[in-house]
């Protein structure tokens, strides 16, 4: 009995020792050997000890004998021991937390590894100081034809209806191609015509400097986009040719040829279509010397934009849906380094655009206390032809000096016709007007830059500009005859308008040892403008003492500006002020006027950290009157203007305040940019207003009261890695107030409110099928004196499926349902688009069959005023050929 208890006790003690005694061992070691199936030692193997939650506790490698030793402190009873070795199947086993020996014999992996390439995430967005780089393939879904289609999908980048591009709320200055400038400020030629297939990356560069010589001295607010091409495109000449044909005689063709090799950078673009695609919807060609120190709220250009077209647009509806046009574009850009010191840049393009649009408008006015309804049908042929050429030479005799000459020539011809009917209780009238314009301009510019030691620089610029804008109108109007009782028949008005401008500008810039930048700017401009208008009827010329037919005025303008940029750690502070002198002289009126005004500006950028940035900016801009303000009422420029009889000097003053916040966390694939802008405008100085026409339209007279607007814009983008979904959200809200007054009496006051948003979700699965869903909503209304004049609402859900069953075949179908309504009408239309693409392997040809199918109402009424004709269903077969690669050395 005693012996039994003794044995039992010993067993119990042994058991307890075995179970609990090990936990008294705090540090333990594991050692062993790793061999292959042939018992040969495996060096370089990695052994990992981890816990149940997969956290790695310790690890070691095997030596040349295949042996290893692991030491660790025990804080749990069991661990997972895993051995990995390149080319062998891993093994894992659970072990108890005590010193022991563990040997492994590994089997070789059964399949011989071929050469396999695994691509990294190619993180879609990378931020490096002022450069944000986007990997195109992470945002493209295969439907993109041109660069603009890709830019629309990049977070933080907005493309408006006219093709204007902005990044983080700031309009870009230009687009570079592999660092080279093409077509100067007319970047739309590239963005709307260069094939999307060529792009590898898009870089958005903030604070970009135009001139390398001024690097580190010049404070720059400019943003540029730099397109980086796929590797093979940088080495040889390359190009694409697209040709498409469709139903209802639709066609589309585009050819591009580029060479970025060696000293010669050449780009050629040709494009023609009648499918509503506008290759150059707006030109940003301000003739006149630009002031690089001018900041966001200030427009220091001494002359107004020379050539501009205003295409009609409806927010939320693509122009291709309702435009039918006939357009062709031919463009060539050449950058050549003749020697290491001499560079020439030249481009020329010609555009012919018969964008015939028919728009029906309806306006209601308050006229002398009575309602006047005007409805018209405009038939516009915008810009039948346009020619622009520029040549620039840059000579750098040494590392500190730059001399440049630039000449540009532009010519434009366009025409429009109006048919207007107006009714009020006192009269009814029909008016027909045909207007054609021919505009020509040249500019010659000389520049000199010299960089001095200790980070100082001097620039000198001189330019001459000549613009000629004759117009001809043919007017048939019963009411016109009532204004000119002695006339008979129709009236022809011929207007000649010539402007000559001479300007000089100098800048002195530098950087203090404390890293504070400063700049002093002096500018002088002399402008002479002549405007004459001749009215003729079948009976002869028309004169009337109340309507002057000639205007000649001269303007002298000078300004002094000083600004400084001070870096204070993470804060960059900027302030500036300009003093402006203007003298106006108009001979026929005997008018002389002088103005002196100050334009201040102040702003800062605060980098919270690498990802987050705050920016705020304020400026006041008072400007001098230009010819349009002087001549309103003096000459008849269009059918509405002739009914006014006032003349005055209008000096608009605007205040701009912008606040923005941006976050670019590329590691977490998130970006956000939000900006709020407040703009206030008024015309405080109106003199010599004379109203002598009983049919004055309200609101057409410059108003001394302040008009204000608030705008909020926000862009968010986030890649949801767990769901493999790219999500983007765009929001915008606006409130614009307007007031009109006459002789300081307030006549009307109103506001336009708008709200809009767009959410898009795109999957990024590795498989064959991917999806896209989205929803867009826009709303706006007009309120006047507290009464709603109408609203517009557009709602558009989108759904799409993309399939890539093989490398050769690609399908995508998108469904867009649009509901457009206002307080008097509602339109619904439904588009079902599909595209099939076949790319034979190792061939240079791509075939595409696409269809845009319209189901529903063929017209849309927007803003109560306009009826737009929505395009019917179209089908196109495209054959796209990638031109043979040509290699040459210059």
């Amino acid at each position, binding site marked *: 009995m005693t012996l039994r208890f003794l044995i039992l006790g010993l067993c119990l003690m042994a058991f307890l020792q075995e179970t609990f005694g090990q936990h008294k061992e705090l540090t333990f070691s594991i050692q062993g050997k790793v061999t292959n199936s042939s018992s040969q030692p*495996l*060096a*370089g*193997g*990695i052994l*990992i000890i981890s816990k149940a*939650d997969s*956290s*790695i506790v310790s*690890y070691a*490698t095997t*030596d*040349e004998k295949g042996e290893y030793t692991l030491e660790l402190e025990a804080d749990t009873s069991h661990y997972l021991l895993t051995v*990995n*070795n*390149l*080319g062998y199947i*891993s093994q894992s086993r659970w072990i108890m937390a005590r010193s022991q020996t563990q040997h492994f014999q590994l089997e070789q992996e059964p399949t011989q*590894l*071929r*050469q*396999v*390439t*695994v*691509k*990294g*995430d*190619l*993180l879609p967005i*990378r931020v*490096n*100081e*002022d*450069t944000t780089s986007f990997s195109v393939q992470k945002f493209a879904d295969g439907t993109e034809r041109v660069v603009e289609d890709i830019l629309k999908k990049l977070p933080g980048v907005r493309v408006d209806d006219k093709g204007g591009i902005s990044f983080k709320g700031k309009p870009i200055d230009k687009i*570079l191609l592999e*660092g080279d400038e093409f077509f100067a400020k007319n970047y739309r030629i590239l963005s709307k015509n260069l094939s999307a297939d060529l792009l590898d990356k898009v*870089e958005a*560069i*903030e*604070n*970009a*400097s135009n001139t*390398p010589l*001024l*690097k*580190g*001295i*010049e404070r*720059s607010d400019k943003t*540029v986009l*730099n397109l980086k091409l796929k590797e093979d495109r940088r080495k040889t000449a390359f190009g694409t040719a697209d040709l498409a044909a469709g139903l209802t005689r639709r066609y589309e063709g585009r050819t591009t040829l580029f060479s970025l090799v060696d000293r010669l950078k050449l780009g050629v673009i040709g494009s023609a279509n009648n499918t509503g695609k506008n290759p150059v919807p707006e030109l940003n060609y301000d003739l006149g010397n630009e002031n690089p120190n001018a900041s966001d709220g200030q427009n220091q250009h001494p002359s107004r934009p020379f050539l501009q077209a205003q295409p009609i647009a409806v927010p939320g509806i693509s122009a291709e849906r309702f435009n039918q046009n006939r357009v062709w574009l031919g463009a060539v850009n050449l950058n050549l380094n003749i020697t290491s010191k001499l560079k020439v840049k030249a481009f020329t393009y010609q555009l012919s655009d018969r964008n015939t649009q028919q728009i029906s408008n309806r306006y209601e006015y308050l006229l002398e206390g009575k309602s006047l309804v005007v409805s018209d049908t405009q038939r516009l042929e915008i810009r039948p032809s346009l020619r622009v050429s520029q040549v620039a030479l840059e000579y750098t005799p040494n590392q500190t000096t730059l001399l440049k000459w630039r000449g540009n020539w532009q010519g434009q011809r366009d025409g429009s016709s109006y048919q207007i009917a107006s009714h009020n209780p006192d009269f009814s009238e029909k008016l027909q007007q045909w207007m054609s314009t021919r505009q020509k301009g040249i500019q010659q510019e000389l520049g000199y830059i010299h960089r001095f*030691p*200790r*980070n100082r620089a001097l620039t000198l610029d001189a330019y001459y500009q000549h613009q000629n804008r004759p117009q001809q109108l043919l007017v048939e109007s019963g009411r016109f005859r009532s204004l000119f009782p002695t006339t008979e028949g129709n009236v022809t008005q011929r207007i000649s308008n010539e402007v000559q401008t001479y300007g000089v500008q100098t800048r002195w810039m530098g*950087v203090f*040892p404390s*890293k504070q930048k400063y700049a002093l700017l002096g500018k002088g401009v002399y402008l002479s403008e002549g405007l004459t208008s001749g009215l003729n009827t079948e009976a002869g010329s028309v004169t009337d003492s109340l309507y002057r037919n000639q205007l000649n005025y001269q303007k002298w303008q000078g300004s002094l500006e000083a600004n400084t940029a001070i*870096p204070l750690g993470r804060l*960059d502070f900027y302030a500036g002020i300009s003093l402006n002198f203007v003298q106006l002289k108009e001979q026929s009126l005997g008018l002389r006027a002088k103005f002196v005004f100050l334009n201040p500006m102040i702003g800062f950028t605060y980098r919270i950290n690498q990802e987050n940035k705050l920016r705020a900016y304020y400026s006041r801009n008072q400007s001098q009157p230009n010819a349009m303000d002087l001549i309103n009422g003096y000459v008849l420029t269009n059918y509405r203007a002739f009914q006014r009889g006032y003349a005055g000097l209008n000096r608009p003053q605007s205040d701009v305040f912008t606040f923005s916040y941006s976050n670019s966390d590329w590691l977490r694939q998130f970006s956000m940019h939000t900006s709020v802008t407040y703009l206030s405008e008024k015309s405080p100085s109106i003199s010599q207003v004379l109203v002598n026409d009983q049919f004055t339209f309200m609101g057409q007279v410059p108003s001394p009261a302040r008009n204000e607007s608030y705008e909020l814009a926000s862009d968010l983008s986030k890649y949801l*890695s767990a769901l493999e979904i790219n999500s983007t959200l765009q929001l915008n809200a606006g409130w614009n107030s307007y007031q009109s007054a006459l002789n300081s009496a307030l006549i009307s006051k109103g506001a336009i409110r708008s709200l809009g948003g767009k959410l898009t979700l795109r999957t990024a699965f590795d498989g064959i099928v991917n999806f896209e869903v989205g929803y867009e909503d826009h709303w706006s209304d007009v309120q006047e004196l507290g009464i709603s004049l109408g609203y517009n609402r557009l709602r558009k859900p989108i759904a799409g499926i993309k399939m890539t069953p093989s490398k050769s075949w690609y399908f995508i179908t998108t469904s867009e349902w649009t509901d457009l309504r206002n307080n008097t009408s509602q339109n619904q239309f439904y588009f079902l688009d599909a595209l099939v693409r076949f790319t034979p392997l190792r061939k240079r040809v791509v075939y595409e069959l696409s269809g845009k199918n319209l189901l529903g109402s063929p017209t849309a009424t927007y803003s109560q005023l306009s009826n737009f004709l929505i395009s019917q269903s179209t089908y196109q077969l495209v054959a796209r050929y990638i031109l043979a690669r040509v290699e040459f050395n210059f």
Partner: protein
Amino acid sequence: MKKILIIIIYLLVFSKSNGQNVVAKVLYRQQEIPKQNAAAKRDVDCILLFNSSQSLYYEASKNRVPNLKSGANDNVENVEFDSGNDGLVFFNYQDYQSKKLSSNEAIFSRKYFVQEKIVVPKWVITKEYKKIGSFKCQKAKAFYRNRNYMAWFTTEIPSLAGPWKLQGLPGLILEAESEDGEVKFLFESLIFNPKNEKIAILKTYGKPMTLADFVEIRKKVLRDTKKSFESKMTQFGGGYEFNVNTFSKENFLSQ
């Protein structure tokens, strides 16, 4: 006959130790953004070749930093000392068995062949995970050569290798960056079983020197160059700064 046999055996042994199959080739993008001298930014492609016992990391492209913008600290005369055109590239060759590291280090445009002992950083492995490419990666941190580094490694590729001189984790390091943001290694692509690749010490100049000797020479050269600049600049007065792109900074010591 004996001699031939010895040669064959030697070649077999030699080829095994110095010409082993390259298991993988990794392409990284190496970015250096020294805060003190923004003009000296570098952005180059680098390649890592490795197998179970060796690795070779070298620069494979020229500096691609675009010359388009004025940086926030860019207030110095833009005197850049680039890598020159001597045919030598920056590389790090590591032999994990013998624990030796051979590299081309530079002082301005002159390259020096340096050999040192491999020092494994004291990695602290965290519980943070993320996906890079198709690999599940885990985060680790360590202080190495005067900087705090964060590295993302994957145990799916069992290798001690990594970009530059970062190594010693139980998996291939796919991405790394320093906490001060001045140095980044970004994963671009990985090729298993690449063809026609070899792991060996690249072209060097002169005899190998130890790390301590190299540091001493470097200090002396920098002191002399600074004095030489000072003497030239005095005629214009002050207002100059003298900065050098020192990737690994001064501190090679203590490890």
